[in-house]
């Protein structure tokens, strides 16, 4: 295999691996920009993946699966919202709790309902999101360089991949170019000012939490009914936390999120590629280095050695209207 084909294959798998990260990191971005920290991205993806796998199996429709995933993730998000916005509980503690509830509940129900060790039954192709061939992909496949790029890298992904990439400019536009976005960002930086202007803090934050649920649910559905053919227990395997790291690394900016997730996806793709392969001059590279890199890079960034990551100012704190 020549170098160009290898590169295309690695980039292709980068896109596939980055997709759930992009969706989940954008979800976190919505929530945290409104002042609600969410370390429960992992849990929401997991319930989304489980709901999608279950409902797609029962109905045979990927769309019903996606809908169920969104509903389940939004429901879990609303529990987080109730605990942190209404009951003013600690956002970190609530996120930790819901991650456990999600991990336990999906494995428990999966085992109780299907008796396949926490898996949902394998889905036929018609119950999954299938690769979409973009117009002309097979026609230009033989054109050197650009043809390969288009037919292998740009074309041939499933719908949710394109949706994830579309969600980046949409998030950016809504957050920075609409009144709703302005208010949402304001509520994450200075809720008292928003309150003084006569806009409800609570409702705005709940809306952000719901958007977060929609995106994490989609990320979960991608895992179980687009990338794989069914749910397996703990199938998120820390992706929610990598997305959290990506969000911080991207300094809470949508376009940065895209590039950070692509970088983390690329590291993952290279790690898979290099497994058991001896690199000339270096020898066998331990896969753990690539597993650790996203976290290590994020810690270095947080330490302020490469730029500064400043979170939304009012993040992590419940808003109390009357202080008297």
């Amino acid at each position: 295999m020549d170098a160009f084909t290898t590169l295309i294959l690695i980039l292709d798998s980068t896109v596939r691996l980055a997709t759930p990260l992009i969706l989940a990191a954008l979800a976190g971005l919505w929530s945290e920009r409104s002042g609600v920290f969410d370390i429960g991205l992992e849990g929401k993806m997991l319930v989304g993946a489980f709901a999608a796998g279950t409902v797609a199996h029962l109905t045979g429709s990927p769309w019903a699966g996606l809908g169920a995933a969104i509903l389940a993730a939004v429901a879990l998000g609303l529990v987080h919202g109730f605990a942190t916005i209404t009951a003013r509980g600690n956002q970190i503690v609530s996120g930790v709790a819901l991650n456990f509830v999600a991990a336990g509940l999906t494995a428990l129900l999966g085992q109780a309902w299907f008796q396949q060790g926490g898996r949902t039954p394998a889905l036929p192709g018609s119950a999954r999101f299938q690769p979409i061939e973009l117009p002309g992909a097979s026609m230009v496949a033989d054109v050197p360089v650009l043809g390969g790029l288009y037919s292998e890298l740009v074309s041939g992904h499933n719908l949710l991949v394109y949706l994830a990439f579309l969600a980046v400019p949409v998030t950016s536009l809504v957050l920075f170019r609409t009144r709703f976005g302005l208010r949402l960002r304001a509520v994450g930086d200075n809720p008292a000012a928003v309150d003084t202007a006569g806009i409800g803090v609570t409702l705005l934050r709940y809306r952000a939490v719901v958007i977060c649920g929609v995106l994490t649910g989609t990320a979960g559905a991608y895992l179980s009914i687009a990338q794989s053919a069914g749910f397996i227990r703990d199938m998120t395997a820390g992706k929610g936390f990598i997305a959290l790291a990506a969000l911080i690394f991207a300094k809470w900016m949508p376009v940065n999120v895209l590039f950070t997730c692509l970088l983390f996806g690329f590291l993952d793709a290279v790690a898979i590629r290099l497994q058991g392969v001896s690199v000339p001059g270096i020898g066998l590279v331990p896969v753990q280095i690539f597993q650790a890199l996203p976290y290590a890079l994020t810690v270095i960034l947080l330490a302020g050695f490469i730029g500064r990551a400043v979170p939304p100012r009012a993040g992590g704190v419940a808003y109390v209207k009357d202080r008297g």
Partner: protein
Amino acid sequence: MRARKALPGWVDYGLIPLLNVTCAFLVSGLVVLAIGADPLEAVQILVWGAFGFGEGIGFTLFYATNFIFTGLAVAIAFHGGLFNIGAEGQAALGGLGATLVCLAVDRFVPWWVTLPFAAIAAGLFGAGWAAIPAWLQAKRGSHIVITTIMFNFLAAALMGYLLVDVLVAPGSMQPETRTFAAGGRLPPLRELFPDIGLGQAPVNVAFLLALVALVAIWVLVWRTRLGYEIRVFGANPVAASYAGISATRITMIAMMLSGALAGLMSLNEIMGYQQRLLLDFTAGAGFVGIAVALMGRAHPVGIFLAAVLFGALYQGGAELAFEIPEISRDMIVVIQGLVILFAGALENLFRPALVRLFVRRGGI
């Protein structure tokens, strides 16, 4: 933490935790009902499995030992106003420290010579792994919650590399070290006290060590100058700085104590039970510590009770999964999450009503 209207002590430390935990268990009961099993029968099997016979009690206390250490670890950080989610990674590194000592000396000396050195190594490795996030928080302002999460994953990667490529026993297909000789094994209590009838339960000398740690932390937090400084810093960092308490010093000390306690958990699991280092031996004990600390309100007595409760859930849950296969051990993870939710995030759910009930009555 914000100032609260004063409630009578028994309400604050007795009734509120009880109500919160009751809620968690009621919701758990609904989950059991939803998968078509009988919650009352489940509770019966669980309680019998955990406390009904000597061996069950022994297993309960064995699990509780892990949770006492990790619960204390999370609690001491709480007192300093720090949320340490990294106990899992710190415990893993502690296991590495204990293992290095055991591998070095287990063939030459008896266990009671190995134990102090292994404990020191486990504590130091755990403290060292906590020291980096602590330093980053104190000096560079990196949020400790995020860095400790990252350090859990970094620890997992490091342990994976060490066990697959470096420490693995020659000829072994599993990522494990060799099994320790007698000098690296903590004797189980059933050998020291054959009359109690603990069956084959692995509860061992580390349990006694955990009891000592409970008392030591109580003395440290409530009876020493350092403990006072940690609590002042946790309650009000600004006031602490005016009182001449160094934020850097307290953050470092509280987190390193926390990491050391988490590291000591490995003595129970590695030297007391597995007798070798293996991947993921912590099995979530670091996270259970969060639930234990929240439920026990960061007080050693509460932590002991909460740790025994979670030990009972783990042991009883194993019996339950055996008797009623639909209720797999994942049920314990659900309960754990619900306890953290109700005792932690929703801790103030009943407070306003109780304040109305008790403060008005007592105030007049």
